[in-house]
């Protein structure tokens, strides 16, 4: 365990440097990540035509989708493609030989990239909150600390969920499609398709106990000041519960799966 902890800073640092080298790619993936803004654009038209749905004003939608864009770029989902590619090519064999478990190799690599995104997106979000009328977050020191904790939890849950899913690759070649199906279904419960407050009641009551909201909607709602103390505590409890569940699930599946692994290439 100590080895893993000491390995994190240098591995994350080297991944950050790699990500910083390909600045153009980072800029491009930020620019093409405009999908949430399309969804927002339609909401703004609805507000302009018929008034705010359920009290959600233009400012609310701007605040929600600006923060949602940050969360989208912060998710740890991307490790699925890396796992899938390495299992197919046999590059996983090399990773198995290294002293740190592959999970941590993928995690540190992804974390390095996320940090580069954060250095662009957090100042952009602060700037937007200062400049764009209506885009505001009612934050004090306590809430800001809670949001920071919720962001860490969001990343950890999305990373562990994606990594657990990636292990399907030991049994099947359809990991990425299975993941996309899972993600697509989850996107209705995460706040990605629309803010959960605007979803039907039954969906909302299911969503608050699922892991998807922890990784996306929960930190956004917290930042927007839409959760009281009880709902905040409940959100953290659900997130921590899923974190523990995926950690256990990952270990169990890994133990069975890695025995089946036969290197494809040398």
């Amino acid at each position: 365990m100590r080895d893993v902890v000491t390995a994190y800073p240098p591995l994350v640092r080297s991944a950050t440097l790699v990500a910083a080298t390909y600045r153009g790619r980072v800029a491009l993936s930020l620019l093409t990540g405009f999908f949430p803004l399309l969804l927002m654009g339609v909401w703004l038209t609805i507000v302009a035509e018929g008034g705010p749905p359920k009290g959600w004003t233009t400012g609310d939608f701007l605040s929600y989708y600006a923060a949602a864009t940050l969360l989208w770029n912060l998710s740890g989902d991307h490790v699925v493609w890396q796992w899938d590619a390495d299992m197919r090519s046999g590059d996983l064999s090399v990773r198995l030989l290294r002293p740190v478990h592959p999970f941590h190799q993928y995690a540190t690599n992804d974390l390095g990239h996320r940090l580069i995104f954060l250095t662009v997106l957090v100042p952009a979000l602060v700037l937007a909150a200062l400049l764009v009328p209506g885009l505001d977050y009612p934050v004090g020191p306590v809430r800001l600390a809670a949001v920071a904790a919720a962001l860490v939890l969001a990343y950890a849950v999305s990373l562990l969920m994606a990594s657990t899913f990636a292990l399907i690759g030991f049994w099947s070649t359809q990991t990425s499609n299975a993941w996309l199906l899972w993600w697509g279904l989850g996107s209705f419960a995460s706040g990605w398709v629309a803010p959960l407050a605007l979803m039907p009641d039954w969906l909302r009551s299911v969503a608050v106990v699922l892991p998807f909201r922890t990784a996306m909607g929960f930190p956004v709602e917290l930042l927007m000041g839409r959760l009281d103390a009880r709902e905040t505590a409940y959100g953290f409890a659900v997130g921590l519960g899923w974190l523990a569940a995926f950690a256990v699930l990952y270990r169990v599946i890994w133990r069975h799966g890695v025995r089946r692994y036969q290197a494809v290439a040398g």
Partner: protein
Amino acid sequence: MSGWSRHARVLAICWRAAVAGEVEYRLNFFSNVALSAFWMVWAAAGASVYFRFTGTVAGWTQAEVLVVIGLFFTLNGLRQALLQPNLERMTDYVRLGTLDFLLTKPFDAQLLVSLRQVRVNNLLDPVLGLALTTVGVVLSGRGVSVVALAAFGLLLGCAVLLLYALTVLLMALAVVLVAAEELGRVSYAFVELSRFPVELYRNPVQAVLTVVPVAFLTTYPAAALLGRLDPYLLVIAPAVAVGAVVVATLAWRRSLHSYSGASA
């Protein structure tokens, strides 16, 4: 016209070879078709959230928005099946010198480079997309006249030409920039912007999307099918599409002039 039939025959052979290479992976094929269908249901269900609060957005009912979403899947499927696999190979063509080899073939270089490959996994997407469009038309309760259908066919053809022109333009850029992956993102973004009718966005976004010309991809063909197209677009759309193909072809030839070859 023997030139045309010869070109068609050669492309058919290229496609048969590409298909033969991929149909071996049957599970993969069906899994991808199922996923395409899922994404379509996903998009339709996602759009339905808007209509919990309103009957029409900018004059578009939910059924009419489905018509556009179906067309979006049609065009996006064509992009993924026919255009993207060729565009993404451009980097290798230039880097490895394959382009030199392709240029020496007794065949139109632009057609060969831009249409040689096909990705089987997305070939059914246009069929699924048009099925959703049909569902949207039926749900909208509008009858479709023969004239509207003909106008729709014309505008959809223009949309496909426009998309092809963009791909050729990006290929021309790829010869110079050797960054096909990044350029592929541009064509992805262009099509993605056509997911909803452009009227669903307010100005200035709507104006930009009309000029860019995202509106020609799905919004205008859908309007034609629903029988509410401004008639002057029947002239403008073909002009824009043909103009785009001409510009792209000129850009492609120009980029080949600046290309000095990579193989020894």
